[in-house]
């Protein structure tokens, strides 16, 4: 019995020593082992209280942007859309004409060469322009992307390939500087560039978007570009500059590209 009691005592002593070591270790090595992880997504909505000082900080920036964006630059005399024609549209013609007019002098200054025509993509026009006041915001809506205007030198055969693409795509991709008439069977009746009949033996300079040159919208003929000149001019900035320059926008569906009935 005494022996047993003694034994019990030892056990308790051991336990105390053991616990002390364990606790000492735990205290020294503060809890550091990963045990549990939770993850969730918090929606930022009206239930989150906005920080007033930040709202106040943002306000002058906000007001400046809104004022500039909304100040009237020009007037649209009609609704300008990309769906009001089969082969060319008011919105497409406006865009392509703007690029031709705005980019040609820059390209000429940079390289001494003349821009021949413009090709953009129908899908790149992201919004219609409603009849009424036109502002910089309009340009952001029509062209929200940061695409640059680039001028591509294409050989005659590459231009031919481009025309085939244009015809077979059956879409009113915006063009300017070109007069293309198709026969009923989609063969080319006539093609003029800058008022001159197409010459397969010469090279042409076509202004387009850097997006299309890098393979966008499957415009594969651009891969055969002889030279690509980025004129560091955003398409949207060309639009804003043009809107600032003119009073009225009144583009028309015209005879630059059509098919004979």
């Amino acid at each position, binding site marked *: 019995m005494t022996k047993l009691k003694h034994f019990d005592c030892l056990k308790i002593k051991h336990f105390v020593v053991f616990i002390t070591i*364990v*606790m000492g270790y*735990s*205290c020294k*090595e*503060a*809890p*550091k*082992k*990963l*045990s*549990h*992880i*939770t*993850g*969730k*997504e*918090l*929606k*930022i*909505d*009206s239930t*989150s*209280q*906005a*920080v*007033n000082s*930040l*709202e106040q*900080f*943002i306000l002058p*920036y*906000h007001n*400046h*942007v809104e004022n*500039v*964006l909304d100040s009237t630059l020009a007037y649209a005399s009609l609704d300008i859309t990309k769906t009001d024609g089969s082969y060319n549209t008011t919105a497409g013609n406006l865009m392509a004409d703007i690029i031709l007019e705005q980019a040609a002098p820059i390209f000429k200054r940079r390289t001494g060469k003349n821009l021949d025509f413009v090709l953009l993509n129908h899908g790149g026009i992201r919004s219609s322009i409603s009849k009424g006041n036109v502002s910089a*915001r309009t340009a*952001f809506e029509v062209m929200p992307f*940061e695409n640059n205007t680039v001028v591509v030198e294409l050989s005659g055969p590459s231009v031919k390939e481009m025309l085939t693409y244009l015809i077979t795509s059956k879409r009113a991709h915006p063009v300017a500087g070109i007069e293309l008439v198709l026969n009923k069977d989609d063969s080319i009746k006539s093609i003029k560039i800058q008022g001159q009949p197409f010459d397969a033996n010469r090279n042409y300079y076509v202004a387009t978007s*850097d997006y299309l040159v890098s393979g966008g919208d499957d415009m594969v003929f651009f891969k055969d570009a002889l030279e690509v000149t*980025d004129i560091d001019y955003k398409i949207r900035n060309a639009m804003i500059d043009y809107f600032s320059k003119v009073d009225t926008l009144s583009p028309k569906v015209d005879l630059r590209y059509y098919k004979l009935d």
Partner: protein
Amino acid sequence: MKRRQFIKNTVATSTLIGAGGLTLNACSSGSEKHLTILHTNDVHSHIDAFPKDHADFPGLGGLARRAGLVQKIREENPNTLLFDAGDIFQGTPYFNFYGGELEFKLMSKLKYDAATIGNHDFDNGIDGLLAQMPHAQFDFLIANYDFTNTVMDGQTKPYKTYIKDGIKVGVYGLGIQLAGLVTQKLYKETEYLDPYEIARDIETQLKETENCDLIVCLSHMGYSYENENRTDDLTLGKKTKHTDLIIGGHTHTFLERPTIVTNANDREVLVNQVGCFGVNLGRIDFYFDANGATSNGVSISV
């Protein structure tokens, strides 16, 4: 949509609660440590909330409201880190007008700890990015872009460590391949390095040399691609050994819950991304105690 609640290894969780209680009795320093990681990605210059009639995100987002939410969480848990996974720039006229100045200033006011660099952060060129660096009072972490021969040389770090309540957190950044995505004229001589290789090097360093308790990757590679030649976050999660959390971006992926991936050490880790335009804030909470994971592994509830 009703969120399904996944509780994994509930046995392990209850065991750990018991163990935590024991430690609490023994030490005055508290039984459990709790670290909160908050994150955004692809905010794309969205500073104002979306209008109430917006087709995709009616009445959502807004930086001042995000700040309020972050502030509230920080009050609840001061051991909070806030990160962004890139594409801070481009998407609203704020960027076109101010070149990213406002984005960086506001992120600084929100006390972001770090961000990685997305492809759109080069939209005003590498010089345009450099020009805004003075407005950023937070770190740019990117391990697989070599900026040596560019103006951004010295402006970024491959990783950074943070100590929160004694927990050491190592955070590194990874960027997407720029060639083919960004005009070279914009990123200039930025050299892209293999992210998987770099990730394994950095995480080993963070684990073995820096003795980090937790390792986080800020990635702008994208969540997942069908094309195996493209690097993505899910693959990164599988290939790494010590990375506990991958905060992703680029693909604007909205996830119902963070994705659990089994890593190269057969351990479950998280990959998360919260869509885009600042409409969501990701929140991952890590709980630490003395005993840590049992043989059943760390419990993850997402």
